[in-house]
């Protein structure tokens, strides 16, 4: 037994060396046309061997390790406890959410402009993740091309503003509706596919839309993108130093205060906040409606749901369309915030980031998704040197989550309707 363990441990250590040394330990460097091969820094080499050593030790004494782990307190203190009673949990969750919103309202007035800008981005991600959560978490459909609908929203605003001078407030519902329509049209043929095929097909759709945006230069400007997208106005008041739109006034003149670039940033942040709250509330409401139950039923047991008269296509399509709708919403805000968009913002990686947020947040759980969106967006900003490793850690985290807790950090419990009877 023991020698078997040793052999396995040596084997695993060698595997570690093989998969890490050539790629990590030897660096290719292009110098003009020539390529040279240099050894990595000593520290990297040492790290590789340390890693192999660690794997060896772990595998050799695996039995004693797992014994020790069993004695350690559980990672999740709630794991053994009875789940909190539903009414209590719902109340707690609403309190936390309200707390976050109140905090978010004061946020822009106490921090720097850069932080507000970042917070706006977080809110956009929250909207996106909440929307994707409907598709993946509630309806159980893996959509890998979600970013396409985000792009539809953003490009709708950008193009309409370029050609017709449409304002943000007009573009917001239009972008969302158009993205929703796209979801409806794309979803209709593909939603009868089995889960993993659906994932790949949506990925294909996402890529097609990106390639079209990139190459249809006459309309979309191709890789150069579209600029000059206007910011939102407040009852016809603009936040720029000079008024651009016809018939508009400027915010600082109307109120007789000095011009400050911060007004605009804060205003955009507040809009994003309101929209994110609306998104969360609407989706929360959906979860308690017949359609929300139908999503869950179809996800749990498709055959039983169909035998009860639920149309698979109609139910899935509703989730897909609603998800796309909110992506369009977020896209419009994003276009307005950046003032400039290009296909580079809508690559597969972006879909993967949003998916990672949903997965980490506990598929289906709103609070979890919101917290995950905050963490995923802000952590890389807090530690700059860490941002390089961001995607590496995302990937690893997704694998770990699937292996360890596929239901996410805050597992979802949809709010159940109760039957209250007086006897």
């Amino acid at each position: 037994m023991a020698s078997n363990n040793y052999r396995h441990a040596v084997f695993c250590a060698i595997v570690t060396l093989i998969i890490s040394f050539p790629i990590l330990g030897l660096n290719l460097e292009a110098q003009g046309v020539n390529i040279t091969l240099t050894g990595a820094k000593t520290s990297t080499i040492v790290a590789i061997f340390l890693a192999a050593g660690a794997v060896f030790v772990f595998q050799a004494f695996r039995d004693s390790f797992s014994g020790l782990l069993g004695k350690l307190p559980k990672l999740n203190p709630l794991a053994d406890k009875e789940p909190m009673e539903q009414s209590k949990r719902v109340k707690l969750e609403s309190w936390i959410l309200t707390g976050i919103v109140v905090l978010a309202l004061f946020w822009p007035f106490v921090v720097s402009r850069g932080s507000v800008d970042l917070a706006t981005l977080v809110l956009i991600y929250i909207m996106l993740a909440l929307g994707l959560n409907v598709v993946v978490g509630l309806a159980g459909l893996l959509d890998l091309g979600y970013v396409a609908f985000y792009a539809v929203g953003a490009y709708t605003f950008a193009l309409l503003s370029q050609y017709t001078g449409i304002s943000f407030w007009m573009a917001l519902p239009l972008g969302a509706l158009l993205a929703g329509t796209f979801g409806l049209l794309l979803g209709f043929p593909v939603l009868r596919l089995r889960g993993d095929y659906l994932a790949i097909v949506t990925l294909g759709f996402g890529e097609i839309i990106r390639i079209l945006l990139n190459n249809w230069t006459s309309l979309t400007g191709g890789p150069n993108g579209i600029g000059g997208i206007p910011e939102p106005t407040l009852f016809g008041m603009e936040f720029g130093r000079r008024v651009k739109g016809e018939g508009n006034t400027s915010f600082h003149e109307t109120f007789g205060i000095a011009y400050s670039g911060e007004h605009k940033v804060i205003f955009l942040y507040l809009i994003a906040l309101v929209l994110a709250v609306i998104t969360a509330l609407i989706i929360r409401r959906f979860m308690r409606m017949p359609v929300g139950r139908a999503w869950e039923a179809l996800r749990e047991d498709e055959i039983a749901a169909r035998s009860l008269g639920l149309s698979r296509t109609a139910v899935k399509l509703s989730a897909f369309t609603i998800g796309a709708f909110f992506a369009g919403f977020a896209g419009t805000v994003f276009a307005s915030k950046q003032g400039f968009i290009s296909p580079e913002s809508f690559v597969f990686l972006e879909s993967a980031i949003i998916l990672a947020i949903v997965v980490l947040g506990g598929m289906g759980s709103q609070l979890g998704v919101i917290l995950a969106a905050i963490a995923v967006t802000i952590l890389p900003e807090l530690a700059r040197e860490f941002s390089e490793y961001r995607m590496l850690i995302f990937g690893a985290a997704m694998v770990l989550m699937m292996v360890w807790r596929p239901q996410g950090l805050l597992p979802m419990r949809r709010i159940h309707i109760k039957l209250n009877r007086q006897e």
Partner: protein
Amino acid sequence: MQDLLYFSQQLINGLTIGSAYALIAIGYTMVYGIIGMINFAHGEIYMIGAYTALIAITGLTALGLAWLPLILIVALVCAIIVSSTMGWAVERVAYRPVRGRHRLIPLISAIGMSIFLQNYVHLAQGSRNIGFPLLIEGGFKFGSDGHFEMSLSYMQITIFVTTLICMTVLSLFISRSRTGRACRAVSQDLGMASLLGIDTNRIISATFIIGAALAAVAGLLLGMYYGSVDPLFGFIAGLKAFTAAVLGGIGSIPGAMLGGLILGVSESMTSGYLSGEYKDVVSFGLLILILLFKPTGLLGKPEVEKI
């Protein structure tokens, strides 16, 4: 005359790329045939194969080795070893613990793995693309009409021949060897095979190793053919190869070969007659159409829904 020459040229180019796609597609189709999951990280295994081969070629050249066949063979062996080991490790770490759970869970795990490996190479080797040295130069020239000259390069011949050898060895392995027979048994009925005393875990590992080895071969070939590699090298190629596998009928090895060739040709025809930018659109469009209208592919078996 020129039309015909041009057409034949596109056909040759398409078959070249297509046979390399087929090599990668085998990995998808075998894994799907056995455990019913899409190994989303397979494209990254192929990319790592290409990087390893380039590292080996550069290293050997720097050591003063000049005999080309030896360089190529050593590079190939290195690529196969690293990729196969990677394939084995990926299965152990990311797929085995989630095997048998809901279909989407292994898929999300695989997507995570794909992102991880992409960034692993990105961090180690940088994000810029690195040129692959042109080792096999020249080729045959055919009928020219003064404007257009059709050619078949030695590189293309190398790709054809290598693919042919790999496919033959694989077919022999699957049909003759003990492990190959066990592979077929497991892909027909995993539960039954394990009752009959086949170590299914070993067979699944073997499948990943074989798929990864073939992907490494494709990595070296296409790396040389395209002339450069970068960390995103595997992503699109992986999707293309997956399309090829689905086109031919996922789970079927001859299907993967056929699918690869069809995809390669339709792609090169698109770039030849339409525009290179839209070749990806055509292959994704093809994927979507097949899944919609014939999800079992050209050579796949129909599936009956279990109730």
